[in-house]
Each structure stands twice: as C-alpha cells, then as structure tokens.
C-alpha cells in the first residue's frame, strides 16, 4: 500500500482517453473510501497532441491544488511519447512507470531514460482482442491495480458496471471486466 | 371590428393605454404616438402589455425618477440589450405559466421599444439573437433616423445627405454618404419572424399589423417611421405629414414579410419624387445648398424606386410560399415533464 498521498501522472494523446481513465481511477479509489483528485492539463491542443492528466489519492482529505510535480506513478498510454522529456520529469528511482507497449522494459528504459521500476503491458492488443476496439483504459487500470495496489479490482469492476451496464448491456460489461483482469494478469515489471 | 379612431376613443377615452401624459417627450414627437397605437391595440385585443425599453429619447423622457409615464409593467435595462432583456421576461413568463403561477388564459404581450440607434446599431446583436431563438415578443423600432436623444448624431438609419453632428454637411463632405441600412430585410432574413413597416399616418394599417404580430406564433419586428420634429427641423405639427410624405415618395414603403412571404400593404400608384421628402425637412437644407445635392437625390430616387419595384416582385414570387412552417411550439417536451 502506498503512503498517505499517492500521485499519478498520465501521458497520452488528446482523444485517447487518459482523462477518462484518470477519472475512473479516482472514482474507484473514492469507492474504497479514499480521498481523490483527478485533473487534466489543459491547453489549446486538439486531437493527437501529447497531453497529461493527474491523480491524487490519499487516506486524508487532499488540500493541495498545485500540479503534480513528483509523481509516484507515471502511466504512459502511448509508447510513441516515451522520448518526450516530460515523461521522466520529477521522477527518480522510487517512481513506477507503467507503459502500454508491445516492447520490453529495456526498450522503454532506453527510450525514456527513466530510473525507476518499469512495467509493460500490451494494453492496446488486449483491448482489441477483448473489446474489439483499441481503447486501452480498462487494461491499464488492471495493470495499475496489480502494480500499485492503490485500487482493487472489484471496485473498478463496479465502476465498469456503473458506466456500461445501462448504456451497452451485460456483454460489454463482461468484456471490459475481462480486459481489466488481463491487464492485471499480464503486466510485466522489470524489478 | 377593425380598430379605428372612433372605436378606440370609446375604449380608451377615460384611461391611459400603457403610457400616460406627463411624459417629457418633445412637443409633437411621433414616438409616444407609436407607443399608443401599439399598446392600445394590445389592450383592445385582451392582452396585458409588458414593456421593455432601450435607452433613448422615449426612455429618458418617460421615466424621470420619481415619475413614470408607464402604467403597465416596464423595464429599462441598457441601450443595446432590450431584446435580450425582454427575452428574459418572456422566458420567466413561460416558466411561471408552466409552474401554474399564472392563470392559463391570461394573455401577456411582450413589447420591446427602441430607437434606431438601439436597433440598427448597438442593439442589433441582441435583437438578432432574441429573434433567432424565437421568443414571443414584438420589437418596435421608432425610427427617427439618428441618435436624437444625444443631439442628432448619425446612425445606421440616417439617410444620405442628412446633416448630423457626427456626419455634418461640410465644405468637402456632403453629410452622411451611405444609404440607410435596410433593417427590415435584415430582420426578415431571420425567416421565423413576422416583419412589418408602419407609419402613424396609416393608423389602420399600423394597428392591423400589431394585431397580426400579437397573434403571430413567434417573434415580430415592426419598423415605425417616426419623425423627430426637433432634429428633422420641421414644425412641431409635422410628424404625421412627414410620414405621409415618406410613404407617397416610396421613401418608406409599407409592407410586411411573414416567414418569407411579402405583401406590400399600401400600393403607391403615382409616387411623388423623393426630392419632396428631402425638401420638406430642414435637416437636408445644408445638402441642398451644395452643387452635388442633385446626384445624391438622384441616387436616393433610384434606390427607392428599385426597392419598391423589387418589393412588388417579391410579393408576386413569394405569394403563398412561406419559407418555413409556424415556429416550433414552445415547451414541446417540457410540458410533458412539468413538475
């Protein structure tokens, strides 16, 4: 279990759903009785531009309203962003990074120069197999649950049910839950 | 029964139709007559008028605190926003009606009055927005062709050659150079609207159009030729005559456009030259002293003639061909969900 204040930075491209994923993470953590924040970084960028989103999760009320400077976890939804210096900003040996990629952690380290623990998961491939769409969010949440313990799967499952049951039915719920579990099972860390 | 002077006098001889005397408009001003015609029609037809007024002559002169010349609900907000303001009032009315706070058979008529400055110029955006949204209100511009409240400055409604303080007739420039903006067509282009021109010299036509506007299922825009005896530099008793001449010279054609269907409501068979209109008013006198006056008058003549011919042609081709059906009934879903 992470310390009192757990901070997450998401890297993706506008339109890939990092903002929604960060909100889902926050909601699942809220259901676990945690205090949460989720906030994206806004510019005037349009679809495809690199973007960031943030989470804070804590056992105590969160007062901070500044941006996340030293994340405990960096989540990279698009591995083509790894060369961007923003990816490693404020990180050190204690930071964890989870990357959606078909490559291995050595490649990730080489690409990014990241010093902490690297975990990889083929989130897009899994999403394509399970959902028929390359939206990696639920897979990434499964990976986060496994690697950090900051959220538990059953709470994410509930969120998935809340979000999809009414609109899309039980089948879509089950598909997403399978994707979530595969993220949990298939994430691989290098240390 | 059409509204005529005798019938109206029977109804209103002992009461004030929305506006009372004791207001401080100039002697002989047409604007209070425009207001009277409009509100008498509404009241005679069983409506309770609610009035919004843009900043202007009519506004400052009728509500000098602690006096008000309005004996109907009245709001003045600012210069450029009477349409938005009355759209808020009208919306509040619909909300109150939906919530059962107003008897269902009570008819309110929402009027917005503004001068040409508040309509053609600074208030055009607010007017266009309110009409586009389809609020049920009647917007009446008393068009005296300039910022008369502040002392005869040029507006988008000022005719060419008119001597104003911000476009004076000088040694080099013959006063305002541009033609009057065609606000009627701008408003008609909203297409969901009933648009008409009126003049106080044609009271039956005037009141029939107000009646039509009251019954129209959507917004209405009425442009009233409204002499400013002071800055048009005519005698105090000339307001009606000025309007009459404006109609007879085609300077102010009387017509209406109902969802794209044109009707010329007063056919002028032997129009008089527009020069007569120009010569009758002192505001054009400095122009007439210039050698280029002829050209300017000719251009205006050409314009009013072709505009009138165009209106007749439009009447012909748009006959029985409305651009749109009746404006969507308000509260389609919300009525079902009324709480």
């Amino acid at each position, binding site marked *: 279990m992470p310390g009192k204040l757990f901070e997450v930075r998401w890297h993706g491209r506008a339109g890939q759903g990092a903002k929604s994923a960060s909100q889902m993470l926050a909601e699942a953590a809220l259901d676990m009785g945690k205090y949460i924040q989720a906030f994206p970084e806004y510019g005037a960028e349009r679809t495809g531009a690199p973007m960031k989103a943030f989470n804070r999760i804590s056992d105590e009320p969160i007062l901070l309203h500044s941006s996340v400077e030293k994340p405990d976890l960096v989540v990279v939804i698009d591995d083509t962003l790894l060369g961007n210096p923003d990816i490693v900003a404020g990180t050190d040996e204690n930071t964890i990074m989870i990357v959606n990629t078909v490559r291995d952690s050595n490649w990730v380290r080489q690409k990014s120069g990241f010093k902490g623990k690297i975990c990889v998961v083929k989130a897009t491939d899994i999403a394509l197999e399970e959902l028929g769409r390359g939206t990696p969010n639920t897979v990434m949440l499964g990976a986060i649950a496994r690697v950090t313990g900051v959220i538990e799967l059953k709470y994410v499952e509930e969120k998935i049910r809340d979000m999809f049951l009414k609109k899309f039915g039980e089948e879509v719920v089950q598909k997403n839950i399978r994707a979530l579990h595969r993220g949990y099972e298939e994430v691989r860390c290098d240390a | 029964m059409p509204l005529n002077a005798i019938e*109206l006098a029977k109804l209103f*001889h002992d009461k004030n139709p929305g506006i009372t*005397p*004791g207001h401080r408009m100039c*002697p*002989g001003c047409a604007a*209070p007559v425009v207001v009277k015609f409009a509100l008498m029609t509404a009241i005679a037809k069983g409506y309770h008028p609610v009035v919004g007024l843009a900043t202007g002559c009519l506004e400052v002169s009728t509500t000098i605190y602690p006096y008000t010349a309005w004996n109907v609900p009245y709001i003045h907000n600012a210069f450029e926003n009477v349409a938005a303001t009355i759209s808020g009032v009208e919306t509040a009315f619909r909300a109150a009606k939906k919530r059962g706070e107003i008897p269902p058979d009570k008819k309110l008529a929402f009027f917005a009055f503004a001068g040409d400055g508040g309509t053609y110029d600074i208030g055009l955006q607010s007017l266009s927005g309110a009409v586009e949204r389809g609020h049920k209100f009647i917007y009446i511009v008393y068009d005296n062709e300039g910022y008369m409240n502040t002392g005869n400055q040029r507006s988008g409604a000022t005719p060419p050659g008119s001597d104003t303080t911000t476009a004076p007739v000088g040694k080099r420039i013959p006063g305002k150079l541009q033609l009057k903006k065609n606000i009627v067509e701008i408003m008609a282009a909203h297409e969901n609207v009933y648009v008409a021109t009126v003049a*106080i010299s044609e009271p039956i036509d005037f009141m029939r159009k107000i009646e039509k506007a009251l019954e129209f299922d959507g917004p209405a825009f009425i442009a009233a030729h409204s002499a400013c005896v002071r800055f048009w530099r005519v005698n105090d*008793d000339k307001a009606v005559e000025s309007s009459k001449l404006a109609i007879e010279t085609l300077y102010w054609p009387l017509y209406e456009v109902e969802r794209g269907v044109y009707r010329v409501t007063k056919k002028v068979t032997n129009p008089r030259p527009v020069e007569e209109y120009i010569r009758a008013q002192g505001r054009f006198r400095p122009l007439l002293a210039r050698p280029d006056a002829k050209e300017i008058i000719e251009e205006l003549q050409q314009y009013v003639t072709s505009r009138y011919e165009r209106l007749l042609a439009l009447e012909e081709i748009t006959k029985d061909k409305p651009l749109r059906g009746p404006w969507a009934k308000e509260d389609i879903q919300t009525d079902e969900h009324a709480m």
Partner: protein
Amino acid sequence: MPELKGWKELPIGGIIVEPGNAKQYKTGTWRVLRPVYQPENCIHCMQCWLYCPDQAIVVEIVDGKPKMKGYNYYYCKGCGLCANVCPRSIDPKTKQPAPEEKRAIIMRPETDFAEE
C-alpha cells in the same frame, strides 16, 4: 415638486411602484401655442384624440359615441398636431387651408391668454 425623500423612505432599486404617476407632472407649461377648440365646427372624428402625443384631448361618451370636449391644458404642450390632422383644417372643396372660422381647432399664441 414633491418633497425629496431620504434613502430610507424610498423603494429599493430605483423602482417606481406607483404606475403612471407622471400624470402628476404638468407639461402644459411648455406650451407656446395654444390649441383652441371651436366645437361648432367639430365632426368628432377623433383624429385629434388619436394622434395627441400627450393625451390632452378630453373625450366623453354621449349617446354611445365619443365626443370631443376640449383640451386638458395641464398636459397640452401645444405642438399643434391635433390641428394639423383635423379634417376641418382643410377646405374640402379647394383642398387649401380652411379659413379660421371654419376650423374646429385653431392655434393661438399662449401670450393671448394672460391669466386663467
């Protein structure tokens, strides 16, 4: 002029709660020319009443019909619009201005009426 009230006595927001109280305000003092009614020539067409911007025409209903009764000089600003729109101001035959004795409304300088 009424006595000016203090801020505690006035309704808030500059709202005027007495509808049409401008009727208390006399605009008759503005008059330079005074319309004089000559009832013998009047046809009671109500044109003067219809057009008066200051609602200064006094009308009564007699046998179900409106009758012009003269002026309310408390309000009349003397613009002369009533006389201008009066059909009796024009000679029906010549279409020229009618002689004064034939008119229903004639305009006279206010100075002709010293004290009343």
